[in-house]
């Protein structure tokens, strides 16, 4: 067997442990993690927790934000190189190892850039290190810091004398706190950041040499498989171990409450054992019908929350010259990672090591400790990249499962899910329905807008202490987070728009203080969170894409009623300069022709074309995007073909324009797949989308549209998230383009040919 011990003898650990002055990080301090959640043994307030200079001149930096394909490995390496004035090749980044890296919670929510690229954390550490090195050099060269220049790790004084970083601090501690006053290098001076340098993992990826977590092999390693229940909340009645007694290489059948797994010597033997093991299950409850699911959702007891409520909606609507109403629906969708999730765990009496593709290394460490009933300081979670993850795929569950199996057999276990394990039990993107009402004044302006949404929710990321939020925890007897029914309280505090519940056109006023992006002051946004029959979780742009689909398509309906151009009409109701900036930039780049939708004189046969626009302030203030979609619609078949996307994006200073373009293109096309074909199905007992025959995705043969990306970067703004911005507006922009082309309004996602044809019939009858 080929063994790769790299993960278990992590090179960063080797570098640091070899320091003559002793371990830099290991149990250096008991301090509170920066996210205020749990104790971490690595003090984020100390420079040595983030960064070390080796005697070979290599800068080793540790981060709690990891790369799963979004390019943050490269961008963070650029950040460290920029602040320390070295080539990227001299930076070695260690990602999300709980023995080495500070606790930065979960890599999620488009938070890596705002967290690590502004004035805190990794950016501050790198800036502190540069200042510290300059101070050391000033002493050594006997010149004031102002006289020194730095190039590629060499500090030079006015007399031409120079000193290298490694001569100053090689293999030694800085012994300094992060300096709150350390200055970032000005974006105007950047030579490494802001440049489109090729992603660092490219060559090994393209040549098949990149080590995914799936490739980790350790001595004595066995292989596991799990047997999931046939349906939600089914429980184990009986496991017949005799049924697998003839399977060669079988090591153990592991049963813990409703968790069932097998461990064998090889993957194939484990697969055979899982296939052959006879398990009787007590059935779970019947599921609500998919056909009427959104009606069902609206009738359930709900946890209600008001984002904003001006309490004058009815009065203002009474004055309106027309009132427009609509309901939008958004289905459950899947992460559907292309690789089935995998983890390797080595649980011994004295320690547990889990090599995991989780986006949440520290929280996973905490849950593993809880599930194995061992103390947290014995658990090490080491990040290894898995297949692309867009929130919460099977990576957390497979890590917990591997640890349970390894503990049961006392040997290292590699566990890989089957396709069905992955898809049937992941935390889905929530199903959601939105009901909207708005009144237009005689001059066409919106005078009041009311919206209510119903969101299905069960579970979430497990965090540090909620294992029941995903399937493994539930099988072991932990309950998931579920919404507790309650009536809404009046909105209080600062206006927030984390889930993009509130349309950009609302003034967003709470107790006289207005934080919204728009001008509409008669406003209400009420969210009903309802118990979901399936696990839900943060699928790329969680709830933001659902809400924005409804908000931006409904805005388009209002434009059409006002007989106004969709760009001009939006501008009339916006006040946030950054939303306005991207909206104008996208329209300009797309050569937008100002006119109302639908297009006049459209054909009633053949293929018709149209354009639509949508915009968003992601999470209220974490990136701004506007997207123009140009689509063809085949009136005979109902097929929608996007032909061109033009996106304008404002995410503040950009770390790597090429990496960002890659993310934006991927996001838009993923959003397009979600808009056109993706929908989880179920029958009265279970999820029936369990593989690529039963869950649709656009394959490589799809005739993809072009994507043009324009960046808008105002001066002196902080860096925001970006990877979830463009996807958020994609379904709405496509829906609006279909309306422009045909006059038919699509209010239910995905835009299947059947739905398009039905909408065409309905619009022809009007």
């Amino acid at each position: 067997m080929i063994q790769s011990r790299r993960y278990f003898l992590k090179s960063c650990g080797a570098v640091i442990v070899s320091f003559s002055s002793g371990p830099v990080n290991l149990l250096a301090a008991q301090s509170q993690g920066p996210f205020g959640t749990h104790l971490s043994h690595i003090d984020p307030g100390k420079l040595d927790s983030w960064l070390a200079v080796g005697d070979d001149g290599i800068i080793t930096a540790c981060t709690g934000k990891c790369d799963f394909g979004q390019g943050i490995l490269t961008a963070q390496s650029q950040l460290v190189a920029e602040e320390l004035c070295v080539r990227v090749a001299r930076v070695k980044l260690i990602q999300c190892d709980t023995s080495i890296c500070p606790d930065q919670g979960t890599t999620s929510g488009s938070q890596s850039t705002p967290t690590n690229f502004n004035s805190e954390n990794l950016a501050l550490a790198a800036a502190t290190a540069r200042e510290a090195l300059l101070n050391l050099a000033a002493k050594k060269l006997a010149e004031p810091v102002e006289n020194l220049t730095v190039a590629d790790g060499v500090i030079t004084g006015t007399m031409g004398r120079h000193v290298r970083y490694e001569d100053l601090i090689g293999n030694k501690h800085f012994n300094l706190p992060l300096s709150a006053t350390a200055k970032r290098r000005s974006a105007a001076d950047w030579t490494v950041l802001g440049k489109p340098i090729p992603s660092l993992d490219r060559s090994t990826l393209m040549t098949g040499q990149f080590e995914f977590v799936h490739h980790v092999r350790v001595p004595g390693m066995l292989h596991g498989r799990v047997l999931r229940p046939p349906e939600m909340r089914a429980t184990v009645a009986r496991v017949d171990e005799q049924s697998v007694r003839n399977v060669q290489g079988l090591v153990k059948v592991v049963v813990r409450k409703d968790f069932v797994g097998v461990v064998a010597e090889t993957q194939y033997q484990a697969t055979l054992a899982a296939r052959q093991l006879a398990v009787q299950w007590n059935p779970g409850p019947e599921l609500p019908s998919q056909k009427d699911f959104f009606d069902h959702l609206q009738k359930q007891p709900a946890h209600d929350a008001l984002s904003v409520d001006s309490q004058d909606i009815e009065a203002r609507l009474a004055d309106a010259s027309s009132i427009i109403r609509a309901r939008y629906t958004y289905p459950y969708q899947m992460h559907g990672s292309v690789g089935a999730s995998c983890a390797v765990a080595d649980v011994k009496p004295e320690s547990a090591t889990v090599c995991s593709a989780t986006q949440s290394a520290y929280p996973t460490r905490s849950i593993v400790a809880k599930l194995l009933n061992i103390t947290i300081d014995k658990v090490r979670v080491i990040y290894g990249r898995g297949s692309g993850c867009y929130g919460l795929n099977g990576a957390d569950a497979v890590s917990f499962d591997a640890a349970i199996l390894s503990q049961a057999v006392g040997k290292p276990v590699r566990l890989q899910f089957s396709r069905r394990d992955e898809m049937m039990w992941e935390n889905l993107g929530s199903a959601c329905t939105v009901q909207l009402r708005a009144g237009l004044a005689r001059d066409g302006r919106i005078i009041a807008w009311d919206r209510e949404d119903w969101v299905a929710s069960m579970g979430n990321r497990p965090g540090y202490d909620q294992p029941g939020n995903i399937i493994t925890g539930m099988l072991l007897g932990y309950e998931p987070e579920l919404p507790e029914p309650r009536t809404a309280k009046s909105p209080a505090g600062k206006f927030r728009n984390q889930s993009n519940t509130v349309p950009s056109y609302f003034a967003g006023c709470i107790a006289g203080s207005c934080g919204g992006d728009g001008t509409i002051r008669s406003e209400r946004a009420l969210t009903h969170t309802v118990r979901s029959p399936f696990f839900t979780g943060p699928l790329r742009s969680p709830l933001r894409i659902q809400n924005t689909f409804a908000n931006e398509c409904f805005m388009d309906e209002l434009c059409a009623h006002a007989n106004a151009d969709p760009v001009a009409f939006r501008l009339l109701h916006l006040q946030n300069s950054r939303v306005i900036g991207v909206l104008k930039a996208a329209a300009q780049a797309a050569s937008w022709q100002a006119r109302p939708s639908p297009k006049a004189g459209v054909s009633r046969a053949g293929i018709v074309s149209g354009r639509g626009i949508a915009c968003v302030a992601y999470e209220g203030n974490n990136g701004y995007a506007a997207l123009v979609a140009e689509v063809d619609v085949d009136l005979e078949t109902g097929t929608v073909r996007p032909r061109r996307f033009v996106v304008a994006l404002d995410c503040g200073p950009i770390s790597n324009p090429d990496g960002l373009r890659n993310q934006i293109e991927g996001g838009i096309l993923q959003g397009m797949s979600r808009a056109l074909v993706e929908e989880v199905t179920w029958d009265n007992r279970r999820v029936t989308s369990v593989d690529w025959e039963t869950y649709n995705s656009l394959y490589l043969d799809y005739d993809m549209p072009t994507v043009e990306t324009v960046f808008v970067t105002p001066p002196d703004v902080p860096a925001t998230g970006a990877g979830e911005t463009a996807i958020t507006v994609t379904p709405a922009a496509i829906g609006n383009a279909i309306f422009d082309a045909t006059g038919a309004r699509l209010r239910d996602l995905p835009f299947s040919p059947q739905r398009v044809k039905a909408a065409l019939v309905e619009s022809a009858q009007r």
Partner: protein
Amino acid sequence: MREKITLHVNGQQHVVEVDPETPLLFVLNDELGLRGPRFGCGMAQCGACTVIIGGQVVRSCVLPVGAVGQGEITTLEGLGTPEHPHPIQQAFIEEGAAQCGFCLSGVILTAKAVLDVNPDATDQEIRDALGGVLCRCFTHIRMLRAIRKYAEARRI
């Protein structure tokens, strides 16, 4: 029942002792330590496990190792190395045509195989060949651009 099976992989001969019903993918990953072909679905639906055998694109997750025969197996790492990538790998490197990269065996090997047979394949023909290959990060545009770049270069 374990049997001795001889495989020809990336120009080298290997003898493995495994149950001949074992999927070729598991043998490539676990016995030979190869990283190019990967387990995506185990049902030949996604292409992540793709290898080329005797010029044909094969889904190694559903092919029993005992049925491989004497054909030369080429995996993604058999095309080239980071230092000396194959021209199609070089085109993917230049175009940055990956996000997570898990699906790359299916994309690169399928495109190479179709262009080996038909160097003048049109974009439509290339896309048709990629009909069973899935990329959930949706790097489609860059991937097709890289394939086109390679196809044009090899015609010269």
